């Protein structure tokens, strides 16, 4: 396999936005917050990755994790408890 060029800035940003969108879809407060936080931290950490193979590997891993998150957001929505976390209720009062 020929070594592909590193993902473009636009591709990386698009992947990051997909993560944030998917994170919001989690019905569970803690998982939703974690997905958002972990994705943001991972992208921040890998921002400096200059060398194409490393950047490619991180990008591929990100895409794989996004698929996991998308599937699990659906699973969580199927079995979401009716009552919300007290952490979400505070906003109402």
């Amino acid at each position, binding site marked *: 396999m020929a070594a592909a060029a590193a993902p473009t800035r636009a591709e990386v940003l698009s992947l990051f936005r997909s993560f944030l969108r998917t994170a*919001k879809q989690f019905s569970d407060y803690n998982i939703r917050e974690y997905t958002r936080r972990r994705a943001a931290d991972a992208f921040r950490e890998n921002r400096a990755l200059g060398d194409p193979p490393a950047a490619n590997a991180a990008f591929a891993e990100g895409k794989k994790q996004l698929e996991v998150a998308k599937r699990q957001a659906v699973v969580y929505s199927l079995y*979401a*408890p009716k*009552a*919300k976390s007290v952490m979400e209720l505070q*906003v109402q009062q």
Partner: protein
Amino acid sequence: MALSRRLLPLFLRRGFPAAAAPARALSTAAAPAPAPPASASEEEDESSITVKGVRISGRPLYLDMQATTPVDPRVLDAMLPFYLSRYGNPHSRTHLYGWESDAAVEAARARVAALVGADPREIFFTSGATECNNIAVKGVARFYRDRRRHVVTTQTEHKCVLDSCRYLQQEGFEVTYLPVRADGLVDLAQLEDAIRPDTALVSVMAVNNEIGVVQPLEEIGRICREKGVPFHTDAAQALGKIPIDVGRMGIGLMSLSGHKIYGPKGVGALYLRRRPRIRVEPQMSGGGQERGIRSGTVPTPLVVGFGAACEIAAKEMDYDHRRVAALQQRLLDGIRAQVDEVVINGSMEHRYPGNLNLSFAYVEGESLLMGLKEVAVSSGSACTSASLEPSYVLRALGVEEDMAHTSIRFGMGRFTTEEEVDRAIELTVRQVKKLRDMSPLYEMAKAGIDLKSIEWSQH
């Protein structure tokens, strides 16, 4: 449906207070099928939950990570295929179903082994850490019973180790229950002195479930190696949280659990050293699975989940540790800034930061816990949470009975947020202050009376 899922979190964010209720109704209506009820004794609707006559406005924030941890979505994602089409028995050697399950089990075994620096052939899947502790403690003692009649352990071990030891005593073995120092750590000189020529096993847990102190595993391992005694450690609370290396720490046997590291409940693993080989007498008779150490069909989905949890833990250990340490600091600072006479139980220096066990002086423990309905915490281990007895672990540390009664264990983990910690601080402080305002003891202590000097009249 997709629309409602996308809208729901938007409504729930700050600034849309009134809209949250209709958004919930919308999402329920749009769900493809109603989720099955969780249990009959639980009443739940959009505005409140009623369990055992206690009404709570929502699901409590969870700070009981030593009891169990939520399953990581990445773990569940790895498990689900083995609950659906890939249901083969991993021990079936004649068809694809068996082969694919077997391959998945072996991949999981390699992941567990990698996290602790072991060889995959040294990992035996069991139902959990309790079973591992039983196999290790009773199994070693029984296998070497002709020459070795003595076991060394500590007073702060988990119930299943202590109970196994008690069982061995009934069978005629002698057991030394080592005391611990006030900080919860075992005294190494005392440990060394306790080992006899006929000692079959030394069992000391890695991270304590109640107070989170980390025992000096490397030093204990070295002592055991010098004395030629197998070293067993219950690492259920340590796996994936502190680095473990069975070679460097001289560990001979080790108990591991799936559900303490964001994996499924009902699965664990026993590490059993091959060189020098340590042998145990199996407890379960049967088909000879797991090399005869633990007969019974290996539960593929659970084992796969355990393997995935270990793989994630290996990758995330540093990240999680940094976060959990920051959360611990935040919790401790937050409480100490507003409440005096708070005591940390167990060493602060040798501690897994995800566990903060605090005692609040002049407060009655049960009242404190009952007042914290919106925070899921415990006073000690889940196994003994039904009893009003103060924790035997705290008593072993020399904590006074009244202080042992007022302990709360805050357990933080991968999914805990800063906001949850802040809320826990707010609620705890409010409850402690409320109880102290009612407490004559607190008033007397504030007035400078030494409570120990009071001679209470009989009644």
